[in-house]
């Protein structure tokens, strides 16, 4: 197990939380291996675990998407591969690995190959800052949320690269729309997150989660109006912003199926396409989990308070309960996003921009202003 790192005076916590792995490796290190190999190996192992988590999340999310979409449309979804098709993503993965590696004629080969890798790498960087339980994380950044927002912004570069290097006009449309949309919705995303950050007083994800503890694990969540009445509008704005960030309906113009076949992903097949796919579902989970950290209590739930009461803070049972809690909350958010996808039509690109700049950003600013006034003047009266 990875251990909690010690905090220092500097902003960033050091040693990346991989102390236990490093100690273990020091113990088994043969003589000829130099000392600087240990942290590198520890980082490699950590990222391997993160990659495995991302892959598992994607697998489950794709299965959930197909079943949810199936049942909404009065049909079953996958049923043949395993019980109700739960092994379908595995079968899909095998099929994608076996596909021919196509690079279109006239495509910029270097950029074409680099784009999906860049997109997935940005996402893995963001997942590095995401704690799975109170003590199981790759790195506990003091500015955790900044790291996540920053790394997920860099996926845009990969998408634009994919659209441009495909040498296809339709892919270019998808890429240009995506760039405009994602950049536009970063603003309300960040601003609406300021409301819970103000109440919590910290950017660190674990501290924000701990700040919502007590009250049987449910009554101190930031979403409730008695904490701050501007939290609910802020959460709604945050949710719309993450729909646009992950290019999910109703904002799925960049990959509009009926207009652009698959938008910027049109020319990709096989394992390269599955990188984009993985990035989409893992980003959905990440954003939903971040939302649940800031609005819905993060690790705190009746289950985890029960486990804490029974076995003590930081114990294995408590950690398992925390992990289960955050994963369930993340998937509840994903379920809601899927439900919306199969209900709503697509918004046109200029309407997307109008909504982002003229509706969401001013409302987010109003929320921040109101929340600040509340926190400064009204909340100290009873807190």
């Amino acid at each position, binding site marked *: 197990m990875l251990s909690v790192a010690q905090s220092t005076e500097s902003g960033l916590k050091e040693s990346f939380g991989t102390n236990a792995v490093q100690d273990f490796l020091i113990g088994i290190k043969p003589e000829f291996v130099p000392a600087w190999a240990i942290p590198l190996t520890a980082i490699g192992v950590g990222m391997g675990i993160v990659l495995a988590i991302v892959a598992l999340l994607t697998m489950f999310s794709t299965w959930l998407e197909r079943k949810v979409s199936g049942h*909404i*449309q*009065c*049909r079953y979804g996958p049923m043949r591969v395993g019980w109700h098709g739960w092994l379908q993503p595995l079968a899909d993965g095998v099929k994608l690995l076996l596909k021919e590696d196509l690079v279109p004629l006239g495509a910029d080969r270097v950029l074409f190959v680099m784009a999906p890798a860049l997109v997935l790498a940005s996402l893995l960087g963001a997942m590095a800052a995401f704690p799975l339980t109170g003590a199981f994380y790759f790195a506990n950044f003091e500015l955790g949320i900044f790291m996540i927002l920053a790394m997920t912004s860099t996926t845009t570069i990969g998408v634009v690269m994919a659209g441009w290097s495909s040498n296809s*006009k*339709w892919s270019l*449309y998808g890429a*240009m729309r995506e760039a405009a949309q994602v950049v536009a919705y970063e603003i309300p995303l960040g601003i609406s997150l300021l409301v819970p950050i103000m109440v919590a007083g910290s950017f660190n994800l674990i501290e924000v989660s701990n700040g919502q503890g007590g009250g049987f694990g449910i009554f101190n969540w930031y979403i409730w109006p008695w904490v701050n009445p501007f939290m609910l509008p802020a959460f709604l704005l945050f949710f719309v912003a993450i729909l646009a960030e992950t290019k999910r*309906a*109703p904002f*799925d*113009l960049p990959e*509009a*199926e*009926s*207009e652009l*076949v698959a938008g910027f992903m049109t020319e990709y097949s096989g394992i390269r396409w599955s990188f984009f796919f993985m990035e989409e579902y893992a980003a959905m989970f990440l954003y939903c989990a971040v939302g649940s950290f800031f609005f819905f209590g993060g690790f705190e739930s009746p289950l985890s308070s029960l486990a804490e009461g029974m076995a003590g803070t930081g114990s294995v049972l408590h950690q398992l309960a925390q992990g289960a809690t955050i994963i369930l909350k993340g998937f509840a958010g994903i379920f809601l996003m899927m439900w919306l996808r*199969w*209900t*709503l*039509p*697509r*918004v*046109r*690109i*200029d*309407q997307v921009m109008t909504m982002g700049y003229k509706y969401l950003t001013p409302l987010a600013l109003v929320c921040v202003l109101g929340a600040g006034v509340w926190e400064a003047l009204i909340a100290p009266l009873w807190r």
Partner: protein
Amino acid sequence: MSTTDTYEPSIAQSKGELLDSGEREYMLDVRTQDMEVNMGPQHPATHGVMRVLIRCDGELVTGAQPHLGYLHRCAEKIGENVEWLQYLPYTDRYDYLAAMNNNLGYSMAVEALMGIEIPRRAMMLRTICAELNRIGSHLIAIGTYGLDIGAITPFLYMFREREWMMALFEKICGARLTYSYIRIGGVFNDAPPGWLSEVEAFCDTFEVKWKEYYDLLMQNHIFVQRTANIGVISREMALDFGLTGPMLRGSNIDWDLRRDTPYELYDEIWKDKAFEIPLASGEKGTLGDTWDRAWVRVMEMMESIKIVRWCLDKVEPGPIIAEIPKTLRIPPGEAYVGIENPRGELGHYVVSDGGKIAVRCRVRGPSFANLAVLEELMPGTLLADAIAIIGSTDIVVGETDR
């Protein structure tokens, strides 16, 4: 719209303004060339194999040109080579979504030449089948329209209803898409026992589901924003281009062949005031926009249910086909009969010289005429709107190309 323009990048330079500091300021204007995008024969949004060559400046469409012929199957030429009755399956296949109406048009044209009278029960069954098929065709039209706009689920709900309709047709004639049921002189098979009560059950359930489609798709704010004020066809434009069907009624022009040139039983049904002609009124946005046309189609489905109920009420047992010889020799002459297809006026023009085979069998497909308006509507809209406009014209390429 020429496709052979050479690319000449030019940098236009202004005269140069003299500033207070004594410097001259030049404004450079880099000209870009419009991008030509092929909404090619294979595309998820053109309903069939149709190519639309779009010239656009970024997302703004500046020119559009439809190219047809990808689905041409020489149907009219075949009509000059096979016997009268043998041509019937070919009529199914041009507008394959409303095959009963095609059969009806052709049969009516040949019966006009023969001058025979159709038994009443045959006319009732013909009307029931034609109106049920109108419902089915509109379900696909609106479902795929929603699909183009991005709403995937209403399409599947509408297909669920269409499955029921196709099961009804399967029971009466054995086929689900290309029926060849309405034949020269009447219909081919009588309705099996219990079929009429099943049709009634379908009508009852459909009215409930219709409300759901209206709420889920037509009233959805995003759908309204995508389709209102887009692709406005003015009254003059509609009449100039010779549009028919919902394209015309979407611009509040009161013309429906079922009422204005009545055929079969429609004059009786209209006299009984059993159905109305829905005319758009610009409820959301401008009159004549795509939302209005979709609205007309949705309302027409309800009117078709009313017509079917009227027929179920009044149908009586009797002969289902007129007495016609086994080898058909149609007396010489020519006839044109136009009927109200779900897409507009479907016209059959048949010429006979007294023999077993037609001399000419010309089809006026409504989608072909409706398609012409695309070149006028699309410039000035965004690319996503261009797709909405194509969807609202409800083109079936089988009918456009034959």
